[in-house]
């Protein structure tokens, strides 16, 4: 009888990335609702130190699949390791963060276990011995509710939606040997870090995005300054990425990234459906646009009708003053 919740820990440089701690928070609630245990699994090389952090974020136990062959994140290597751990534990629910790595490993694990997967969920509920998952589809134009017809159920969770648990589960560590092969067919030869201090768009709690209303690439410095003042990540509309003003890693929207920060600034962005697809579940949206009839104002929590080139420097200065005052 499948029991318990297993959560995949995505980690970098000795610490668990925030979307995985959020997944533990969701896992904690599901485990409590079913009176079952919450187990975390960390895969890689030198992962012992993650057990304590996982415990503080709610895990009762932590499985450590520690092997030099798993140092680099190969989907097959990590997928096989997690699938093996899941076969031994037989959980009812397996959770992943819906980050690039999390989504990939989730899909491999679901295929290896021949079971269902719901991607990028915004809600999970334990119900009647099973689960319900809600996830945006059609670029966020609709919400699909699904339930598994077999357990375990695998789900990846949208970052910035679920809360990190305050409960320390203890995080008792258990080493698990890696019995898989095939981790060597994909080799990461280089990591090119984003510019120093650049905040990751997918995890940022504040995002400041710019669009064509900025009139030219040189004016994006106004977006960067506001972002710096707020400790925010920088985003961009498709139009300015296609025009070559900004790199596509910054694109928010249907063919870019989906973000769900606490606060999203849309500056000089009209609000086409494809852009909204990437940000419409942000908690608070502030829109700055010269055109009163721009569709972005239909989703904005607060709107300011004005020229972004004029408003942004004034806003940045006023925020700096408010913080220091």
């Amino acid at each position: 009888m499948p029991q318990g919740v297993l959560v995949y820990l995505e980690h970098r440089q000795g610490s668990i990335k925030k979307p995985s701690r959020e997944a533990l928070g969701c896992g904690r609630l599901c485990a409590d609702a079913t009176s079952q245990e919450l187990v975390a699994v960390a895969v890689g090389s030198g992962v012992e130190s993650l057990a304590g952090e996982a415990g503080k974020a709610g895990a009762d136990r932590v499985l450590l699949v520690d092997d030099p062959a798993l140092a680099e994140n190969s989907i097959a290597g990590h997928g096989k390791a997690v699938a093996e751990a899941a076969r031994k534990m037989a959980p009812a629910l397996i959770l992943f963060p819906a980050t690039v790595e999390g989504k990939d490993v989730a899909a491999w694990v679901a295929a290896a276990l021949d079971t269902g997967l719901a991607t990028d969920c915004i809600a999970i509920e334990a119900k009647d011995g099973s689960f319900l998952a809600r996830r945006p589809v059609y670029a966020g134009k609709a919400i699909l509710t699904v339930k598994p017809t077999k357990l375990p159920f695998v789900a990846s969770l949208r970052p910035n939606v679920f809360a990190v648990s305050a409960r320390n589960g203890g995080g008792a560590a258990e080493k698990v040997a890696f019995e898989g092969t095939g981790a060597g067919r994909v080799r990461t030869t280089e990591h090119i870090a984003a510019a120093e201090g650049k905040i990751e768009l997918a995890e940022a709690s504040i995002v400041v995005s710019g669009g064509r209303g900025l009139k030219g690439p040189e004016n994006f410095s106004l977006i960067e300054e506001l972002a710096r003042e707020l400790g925010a990540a920088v985003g961009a509309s498709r139009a300015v990425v296609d025009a070559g003003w900004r790199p596509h890693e910054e694109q928010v929207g249907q063919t870019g990234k989906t973000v769900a920060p606490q606060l999203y600034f849309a500056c000089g962005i009209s609000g086409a459906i494809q852009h909204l697809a990437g940000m419409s579940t942000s908690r608070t949206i502030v829109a700055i646009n010269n055109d009163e009839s721009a569709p972005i104002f239909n989703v904005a929590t607060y709107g300011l009708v004005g020229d972004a080139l004029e408003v942004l420097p004034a806003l940045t200065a006023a925020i700096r003053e408010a913080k220091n005052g």
Partner: protein
Amino acid sequence: MRQVVCVKRVPGTDTRIKVGADGRTIDAANVQYVLSPYDEIALACAVELREKHGGEITVLTLGPSEAQKEMRTCLAMGADQGVLLTDTTAFRDPSSTAVLLANRLKDLPFDLLWFGNKAADDDGGQVGVRVACLLDLPVVTFVTRIEAAEGKITVHREVDGETQVVEADLPCVLTAQKGLAEPRYPSLKGIMAAKKKPLEEAAAGDAPSHVEIVSLAPPPPRPEGRIVGKGLEAVPELVRILKEEVKVL
């Protein structure tokens, strides 16, 4: 270099989505279907690689018979032949799709198997990796650049916060990210040539689903917003809101 590109027919990204009478799938009346955008990017990249390395490109899809239209578009965009596995299921569970594609792929040898990184309807991004697992092949996702050499490929991929340079042995599975290639819209010459290229149509068969759709619904409406003001004069009020209501300062 033998390449297979898996593509999907999806509602156009401008479509107004209406929930159908069953409360579980969309109302397909008046929906314009197109090739999923990331799949077009994958196909464009395959065409560029064929220009450098030769070989053939097969496009494969699981879809209704009407998907012949999208398959002819792929042939016009440069694919050499197409395989359409006909399936009338409205919103097939990706685990089932992956099994059906993997079954057919056993008879379609390839060096590179392409997918878009996600389909523009389900937004699930599962099928490419699932197929790689079922065929036990290396898979690299979110590819933004690719070079092929003897028996292996070197790609750039975009991962949250960094770019990775990755090598993979062939055969392998790849998923395309924006920036990898620009889709080439069919020329008249391409469209004419497409009519003569082979397009095989066969029943997809069936495979079990592991997830059931409970409901499809419009998203919850956002709480009513307000215009704070116009121009520079509105800045102090916006800052007050950020401090006292949004509490970020």
